[in-house]
């Protein structure tokens, strides 16, 4: 008989600040030693559920609880967060915010310090936990130079001091690039097996979590449990898209090929899937669809020629060259520190090439001021709150025009045009504070478009966003590109974005541009994937197992997905 460790009974929760109940009548039992994925889109209630388990609700968030929730036998509404924290260890989504120590060792020690553990015992425990996650060589390092993946390992080590029997991961993949995400899923699995803990993962990125086995998936939407089943049953159910969850790519690809899965098949792991019998259908499908049309190139817009840049001794850009043509959609990919953001800063004129040159429509950018370049190349930062200054939408869009000294009429005209382009005209007098994340993103894009730039650069436009918001942001950008022929550069780790929305990928590694090619070529080249901290998509695995050329297969997949999306627009 398995021992129940988390028991929700007719449990509901309503935040004090909201009028609607966030969790509605939850009945759920999780057993000791289980590995469970709690799956849901943003706003589904999955994070609220997590916060109920670790005690942040009701400790930090006021609200109304009805029903009962017992964690490790403790009724949470009567317990203190401290009591619960010795049973539940939480790794949060924001890797920066949860790193509160000034060094790796200190952060791992944080819970021990709070419990006044003597220092000699503390040192032992920290060493032990650091070794479990492979961070033992970094103990004196400050957080500033660590990658997101390393910070997350530190957070995990911080809850491995033996007391906690439940490990709770709240969106562990949100801040990581694909390769780090894969490593994180692997590490969680390894700890789960070695330490025999109960593991709960809260995520919306299903395919990435399924990289390692999970026992059970709880699908949540609208504050209710929609399904509680094995991964196989869920994948077969077809409930995913309906609840804003992206299907694993290999499943989509097989479905595209018209394949129906039998009830007995294991779908959760591509390696176990009996692919051979689908080979013919896939091949037929590829033949049936017209081959991928490479979009014709327009005139040359930007020419980057052999640029170098160093910060002191450290070379961050090394002999980089590429061309950008009008109307292109390009993904700029590479690990953190590979030179992507330095390149973006250089394109905007914030820093200048130490060797080589950049020219825009034939004019050498060296002759232009930051301000002049700013009217040709716009830069949209990752977090819209980093950019928004004004309280009213129209004022925010007007700001750059005021700073550039346009005439009143010109400003009025441009503000109106831009707002219409971005479907914000009807909301122009709204305060920014009432807007959703996606709408704020649109406001920041509008505030840049007001200057009528030729090119806009977007830094991680979809980072941390679920499928629904991702689609909202990306289809808006695609429409801008299609209707107004605006050239868009995406600085991104998001492989789905690259596959679905861009034509070309420029790949950086160690300051060098190591590839500049069609997305399907880049993603089927395992050397580039490794260099750029990307991850081999399941499409490549699928192609290899069916004996189809991966490049042709990805190309085919892209084409059929775009066709489907284009039909969706009509």
């Amino acid at each position, binding site marked *: 008989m398995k021992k129940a460790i988390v028991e929700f009974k007719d449990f509901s929760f309503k935040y004090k*600040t909201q009028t*609607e109940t966030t969790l509605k009548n939850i009945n759920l039992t999780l057993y000791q030693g289980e590995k469970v994925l709690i799956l849901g889109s943003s706003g589904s209630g999955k994070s609220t559920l997590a916060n109920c388990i670790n005690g942040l609700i009701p400790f930090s968030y006021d609200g109304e609880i009805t029903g009962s929730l017992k964690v490790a036998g403790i009724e949470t509404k009567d317990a203190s967060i401290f009591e619960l924290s010795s049973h539940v260890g939480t790794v949060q989504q924001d890797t920066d915010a949860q790193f509160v120590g000034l060094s790796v060792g200190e952060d791992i020690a944080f819970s021990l310090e709070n419990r006044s553990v003597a220092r000699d015992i503390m040192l032992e425990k920290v060493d032990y936990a650091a070794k479990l996650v492979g961070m033992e060589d970094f103990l004196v390092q400050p957080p500033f130079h660590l990658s997101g993946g390393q910070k997350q390992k530190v957070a995990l080590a911080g809850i491995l001091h033996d007391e906690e029997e439940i490990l709770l991961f709240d969106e562990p993949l949100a801040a990581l690039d694909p390769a780090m995400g894969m490593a994180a899923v692997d590490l969680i699995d390894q700890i789960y097996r070695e330490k025999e803990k109960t593991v709960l993962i809260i995520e919306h990125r299903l395919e990435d979590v399924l990289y390692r086995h999970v026992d059970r998936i709880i699908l949540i939407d609208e504050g209710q449990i929609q399904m509680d089943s094995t991964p196989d049953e869920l994948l077969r159910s077809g409930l995913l898209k309906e609840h804003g969850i992206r299907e694993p790519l290999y499943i989509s690809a097989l479905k595209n090929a018209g394949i129906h899965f039998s009830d007995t098949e294991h779908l959760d792991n591509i390696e176990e899937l009996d692919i051979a019998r689908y080979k013919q259908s896939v091949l037929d499908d590829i033949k049936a669809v017209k081959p991928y049309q490479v979009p014709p190139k327009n005139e040359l817009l930007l020419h980057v020629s052999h640029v170098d840049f160093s910060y002191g001794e450290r070379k961050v850009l090394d002999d980089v060259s590429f061309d950008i043509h009008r109307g292109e959609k390009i993904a700029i990919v590479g690990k953190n520190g590979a030179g992507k953001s330095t390149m973006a800063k250089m394109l905007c004129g914030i820093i200048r090439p130490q060797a080589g040159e950049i020219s825009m429509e034939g004019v050498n950018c060296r002759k232009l001021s930051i301000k002049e370049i700013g009217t040709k190349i716009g830069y949209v930062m990752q977090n819209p709150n980093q950019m928004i200054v004004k*309280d*009213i939408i129209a004022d925010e869009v007007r700001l750059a025009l005021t700073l550039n000294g346009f005439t009143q009429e010109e400003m009025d005209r441009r503000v109106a045009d831009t707002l219409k382009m971005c479907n914000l005209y009807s909301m122009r007098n709204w*305060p*920014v504070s009432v807007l959703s994340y996606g709408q704020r993103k649109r406001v920041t894009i509008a505030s840049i478009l007001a200057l009528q730039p030729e090119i806009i650069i977007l830094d991680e436009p979809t980072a941390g966003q679920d499928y629904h918001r991702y689609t909202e942001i990306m289809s808006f950008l695609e429409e801008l590109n299609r209707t107004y022929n605006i050239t868009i550069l995406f600085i991104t780790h998001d492989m789905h974005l690259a596959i679905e929305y861009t034509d070309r990928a420029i790949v950086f590694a160690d300051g060098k541009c190591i590839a500049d090619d069609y997305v399907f070529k880049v993603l089927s080249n395992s050397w580039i994937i490794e260099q750029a901290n990307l991850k081999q998509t399941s499409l490549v695995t699928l192609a290899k197992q069916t004996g189809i050329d991966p490049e042709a297969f990805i190309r085919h997949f892209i084409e059929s997905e775009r066709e489907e999306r284009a039909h969706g627009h009509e």
Partner: protein
Amino acid sequence: MKEKSKLSLLLGVWNTKTIVGVAIGAALFGVLMVFGGIKVFTNTSLTTAMVVVVVVAGMFGPLPAAVAAGIGNVIADLIGGWGFWFDWSIGNFVLGFFVGLLPIYGAKIDEGIFTVKHAIIYVLTVIVGNAIAFGLVTPLLTYLFYSSELTVTWMQALSAIISNGAVLLIVGIPFLFLLANRNAKKTNLTKED
């Protein structure tokens, strides 16, 4: 009852959130003081650091604001490397407290409440706070610690009063209105179609 609630408003609730808020406020204060000066002449610059204190006050109350200003000044000393001058840190603490009185007279920046009436009271607190902090407390401490000549100490204090006052009024007031507007109308969280 009301007396008590005023007192708790003055002192603030020192939970983890307040501690972190004060720490972030102090860090911002230090960064702005060291790296964010607005050049007036070659060697003089105005600092906008005090504006941060107003935000801490809006979220957590006057005492947290004062602590953020005092520790923020110590942090500026630490990262700027110009040695500790406790007389000035304590002066900033006092000014921080006065400037931080916002929630006491009903201005709630994080809820979007800041009116002309509040702005007028704010101007008064800036003037009074500045006069007490740098006209009285800091010169007195400087005199006690370093037995300095009072006239010269006051001359230095006067320049602090003028620059702090200028920033708190010229930058502070438009900033407060804008920030309050950015935070306004947040209460309606019902889902809309």
